């Protein structure tokens, strides 16, 4: 399967359309009610981070398949990338309650808990790329 | 196996078998001896020892197949693995004794012979153990599936009051399922109070407590209240000793107490009806 959605995030509406696209793709992939909500919420958090800190960026949502593991798995992969200021203190932002925006500080650690796999690459001054995967159970 | 050893075993076959049979009765696990009637165990013993000896002249594949077949049959009948391991060990003892009592083997060859017999016996033990562990694995898999199906339905006992009885160990996978079941059940039955009964949960460690707390929080978010019931003394002890804070939640020692509290929270109570003799008489 090569179906994917790319959503530009540079307004608040980008956040809404990204999570709607994610929910639809998750539903089509066969995710249950609760996982659909988890995926949509994770996308919302990632998109909001782009909007708040990098002003613009892109959310890519795609189907993935893991054929290497003994039991082949299918799932959904979210890639959030921006060319913003980057995160110099990754350890801090992954901590519960850490916030620079006045939010709950549940954003990135929250995404990590909502999804099955989570990976973050960031270079100060160049941008951030976050990848998260949810596998079908 | 050296032909000379095989030949020796065959010429001494009757002695070996009878020695082994008396030996096996001594080492037979006592629990098993009681469970299985003598004739049945005698017959199985004979079959077993003949199979071992027979396997000497079969090709490796044929021998493996026969042994597996025999093992599977006994697994099915519920014979323990220790019957095989002790049986094989006894067989080795008998064989070595028989050999050492014979003078035909030169002392030079003794070591070699011992080694060959060891290898042969061990390979049979390994093969049977594999067969057993394979059967255990599939049993565990089946039980895991069954456990998942068992996972906790929410039972509406009164209007607005439901009970979720938890039985068995709670791992992350099950905890997720339980949470979804409870929440969906609350919406379906419009429950205001949910009693989570952990009488059947053997151990409450920090992980289990964490799952319970999360479930209670989620229950509160959808708009119901959670009461943890069935807290046995030893569970209360471990919870406090581990420093787990459950003070935010209502807890009760028994389901009955929990039901009373549940009814109280929804402005009801159970009352005893006045004993109306006339009404009973008139029926």
């Amino acid at each position: 399967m090569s179906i994917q959605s790319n959503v530009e995030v540079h307004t608040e509406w980008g956040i809404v359309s990204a999570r709607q696209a994610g929910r639809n793709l998750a539903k089509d992939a066969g995710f249950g009610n609760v996982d659909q909500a988890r995926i949509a919420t994770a996308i919302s958090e990632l998109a909001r981070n782009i909007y708040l800190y990098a002003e613009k960026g892109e959310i890519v949502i795609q189907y993935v398949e893991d054929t290497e593991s003994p039991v082949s798995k299918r799932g959904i992969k979210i890639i959030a990338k921006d060319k913003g200021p980057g995160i110099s203190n990754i350890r801090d932002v992954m901590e519960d309650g850490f916030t620079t925006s006045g939010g709950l500080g549940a954003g990135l650690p929250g995404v990590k808990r909502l999804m099955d796999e989570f990976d973050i690459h960031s270079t100060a001054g160049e941008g951030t790329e976050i990848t998260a995967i949810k596998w079908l159970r | 196996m050296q032909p000379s050893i095989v030949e020796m075993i065959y010429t001494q076959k009757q002695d070996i078998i009878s020695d082994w049979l008396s030996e096996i009765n001594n080492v037979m696990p006592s629990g098993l001896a009681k469970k299985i009637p003598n004739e049945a165990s005698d017959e199985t013993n004979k079959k077993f020892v003949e199979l071992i000896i027979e396997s000497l002249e079969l090709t490796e594949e044929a021998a493996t197949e026969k042994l597996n077949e025999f093992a599977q049959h006994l697994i099915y009948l519920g014979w323990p693995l220790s019957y095989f391991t002790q049986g094989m060990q006894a067989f080795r003892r008998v064989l070595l004794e028989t050999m050492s009592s014979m003078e035909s083997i030169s002392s030079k060859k003794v070591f070699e012979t011992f080694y060959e017999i060891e290898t042969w016996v061990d390979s049979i033990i390994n093969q049977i153990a594999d067969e057993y562990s394979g059967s255990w694995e599939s049993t565990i898999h089946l039980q895991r599936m069954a456990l998942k199906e068992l996972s906790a339905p929410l039972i509406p006992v009164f209007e607005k009051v439901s009970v979720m009885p938890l039985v068995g160990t709670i791992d992350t996978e099950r905890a997720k399922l339980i949470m979804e079941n409870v929440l969906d059940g609350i919406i379906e039955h419009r429950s205001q109070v949910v009693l989570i009964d952990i009488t059947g949960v053997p151990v409450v460690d920090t992980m289990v407590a964490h799952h319970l707390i999360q479930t209670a929080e989620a229950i509160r978010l959808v708009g119901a209240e959670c009461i943890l019931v069935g807290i046995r003394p030893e569970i209360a002890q471990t919870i406090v000793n581990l420093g787990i804070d459950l003070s935010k939640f209502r807890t009760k020692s028994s389901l009955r107490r929990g039901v009373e509290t549940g009814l109280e929270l929804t402005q009801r109570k159970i009352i005893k009806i006045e004993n109306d003799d006339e009404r009973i008489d008139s029926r």
Partner: protein
Amino acid sequence: MRIPILKLHKYLLISVQVELDDQTALQFQEDLLNKIHQEGSIGVVIDLTSVEMIDSYIAKVLGDVVEMSNLMGAKVVLTGIQPAVAITLIDMGIMLNEVPTALDLEQGLEKLQQELEG
């Protein structure tokens, strides 16, 4: 987009029927506080039955609304949070600890009445 706020005696009722984007949520916060001030309401029920997703930002706005309303003397009950939404919030570690909840609008109103009128 504006979320309609209904008045019922001393209470305000809100049923959120739209996907909550940030702007709508903030607008709602402002509208509700103005309405409480205007009407002198003592209780508010916000029904979230139709809301499919609450992320940390929306959760923050909702928590704030409750706190602000309390400051203005109006008690708030959130109702109808869907199981999937509740699980997602718990996963993220958002407990909304200080916020009273109820199953639906009806039970939310009952809860308010009990707490306010004894």
